[in-house]
C-alpha cells in the first residue's frame, strides 16, 4: 500500500503529462480529429435511436439523453478494458528500457479516456438542456457514482493487464465478453424490459448496468441510486483495485521477460 502511494506520487505527473501528450498527438494527426471525440458517440447514439425507436418501437422518455448517458459510461469502461489487455505489449518500448510501475500505464490511459468522457458529459448536459430534462438535487450523486465507476474500471483493468501479458489471445476473449456485456447492460433499451427475475439479477450483478442505471436515475428521473448497492460496488471496486495492484507488485518484474 505504501509502495503504491509512493509510486503514484512519483509518477502521476508523468501520467498526466503523457496523457496530455497522447491527446495532443491525436489532434496533431489531423485538425478534424478532436471532432471525432464528439462525432463518434453522436453517431452511435443515432444508430441506437434508429434501432430502438424505429425497429423495436420502444418508447422511452428523453431517449437521446437516455442513450447518451449509457454510451458515455460504457465507452469509458469498454475502451479502458480493451486497452489494458494489451497495454504492456503496446508500451514495450518503455517497459523494456526502464522500470515503471505497470499500473501507471493504466492510469495514464484512464486519464486520456476520462478527458474524452468529460467531453461526452458536456454533450449530455447540452442534450439535457435541449430536451428540457428537469433536474433535482439528486444530481450531486454524480460524483460518488463516477468514483465507483473509476474504481471498478481501474481494478478490472489491473487484473486483466496481468493476465493479458501471459495469455496471448485474451484480447479476443475479452472482445466477446464485452460484446455480450454490452447487450446485457441496456445501453439502448431499458433493462427493466427484460423479464422480471433476470433484469434485477443483471442490475445487481453487472456493475456497469447498475452504474448506468444510477446515472440515468439521477440525471433523468430525479431519484437517487440504491445506496446499498452503490456502497457494495464502491467497496468491491476498492477490493478489485487492491487485488490488482498486489498482483502487479508481485509479478511485474517478470513482465519484461515475457513480452
Amino acid at each position, binding site marked *: 500500500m505504501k509502495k503504491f502511494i509512493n509510486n503514484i506520487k*512519483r509518477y502521476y*505527473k*508523468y501520467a498526466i*503529462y*503523457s496523457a496530455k*501528450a*497522447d491527446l*495532443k*498527438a491525436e489532434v*496533431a*494527426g489531423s485538425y478534424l480529429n478532436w471532432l471525432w471525440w464528439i462525432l463518434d458517440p453522436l453517431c452511435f447514439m443515432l444508430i441506437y435511436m434508429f434501432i430502438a425507436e424505429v425497429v423495436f418501437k420502444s418508447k422511452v422518455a428523453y431517449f437521446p439523453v437516455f442513450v447518451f448517458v449509457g454510451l458515455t459510461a460504457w465507452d469509458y469502461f469498454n475502451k479502458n478494458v480493451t486497452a489494458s489487455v494489451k497495454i504492456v505489449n503496446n*508500451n514495450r*518500448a*518503455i*517497459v*523494456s*528500457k*526502464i*522500470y*515503471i510501475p505497470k499500473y501507471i500505464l493504466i492510469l495514464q490511459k484512464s486519464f486520456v479516456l476520462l478527458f474524452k468522457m468529460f467531453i461526452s458529459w458536456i454533450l449530455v448536459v447540452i442534450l439535457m438542456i435541449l430536451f428540457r430534462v428537469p433536474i433535482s438535487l439528486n444530481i450531486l450523486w454524480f460524483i460518488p457514482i463516477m468514483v465507483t465507476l473509476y474504481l471498478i474500471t481501474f481494478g478490472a483493468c489491473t487484473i486483466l493487464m496481468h493476465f493479458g501479458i*501471459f*495469455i*496471448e*489471445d*485474451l484480447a479476443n*476473449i475479452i472482445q466477446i465478453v464485452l460484446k455480450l456485456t454490452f447487450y446485457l447492460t441496456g445501453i439502448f433499451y431499458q433493462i427493466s424490459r427484460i423479464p422480471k427475475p433476470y433484469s434485477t439479477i443483471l442490475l445487481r450483478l453487472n456493475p456497469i448496468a447498475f452504474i448506468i442505471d444510477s446515472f440515468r436515475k439521477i440525471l433523468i428521473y430525479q431519484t437517487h441510486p440504491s445506496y446499498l448497492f452503490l456502497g457494495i460496488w464502491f467497496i468491491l471496486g476498492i477490493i478489485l483495485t487492491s487485488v490488482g495492484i498486489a498482483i502487479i507488485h508481485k509479478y511485474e*518484474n*517478470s513482465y*519484461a*521477460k*515475457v513480452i
Partner: protein
Amino acid sequence: MEKEAAITVKGLHITYRGIKKFSIKKSFFKLKKGQRETFEAVRGISFEVEKGKILGIIGKNGSGKTTTLRALAGIFSPDKGEINLHGNSISLLSIGVGFQPKLTGKENIYLSGMLLGFSEEEIKKKEKEIIEFAEIGEFINRPVKTYSSGMYSKLAFAITAILETDIMLIDEVLSVGDVKFKEKSYNKMKELISDDNRTVVIVSHSLGTLRELCDEVLWLHNGQIKMIGKPDEVLKEYEDFMTK
C-alpha cells in the same frame, strides 16, 4: 579517500523460465503440456563498482551482458542474489527510451525525462542544452516519426547524457550518428565519466572504446564471469580468445 561502492552485485542469477506466453487457442490444439523451457541467462555473477568508476562489460553475443544491465536498471528483479545500488539514481541509456513517434522531439524530451524521474522544472532547465547537444535543429518541433534513425538516436543519447543520473548504464550507443556526432558524444561521454561522482557501466563490442574509457573490464562468458580486472589485461585475453 575512502572507497565507496556505488553498485554491489552478489550472486546474481537471472532465468527466463516457464513464463512463456500461453494461448488458449494453442492449448486446445496441443493437449500435451509443453515442456517448461528454462534458460539461465546470468548464472551467479558478483561484482562491485566503486563510486565514480567506469566498468566495461564485454562478451560474445548472448553471454548475458544486456540482461545484466537490465537487471541493474531494475527492469527485472533477480531470481537469486541481490543488487544494491546504495540509493543512487540510475538510467539505462539505450537507443530511444520509449519515444512516442507522433509527438515532437521536445515533448518527447519531457516524457523521457519524467520517466527517468525528473521533475518538469528540472527538465525545463536542461531543455536547451539537450536540444543543442542533439543538434537536430528545426526537427525538434516535428514529430519523432519523421526523424532519421540517426537523429532518433542522437536525441536519445542527448536526453540521457544531459539529464544526469548518479549511475549511467550504456548499451552500445557509442556508435550513434555520423562521424562528427560520434566524436562529440564520445567526448561527452568522457566528460561525464571524468565527473568523480558518476558511476558508469558500459556494454560494448568496441575494444578500443573500452580500453580508453574504462577503469575496469568485466568479461562475461555464458552468463558467468570469465575475468575481471584491468582493461589491458582482460581485453588482451579476450582478443586472444575470440580470434582463436
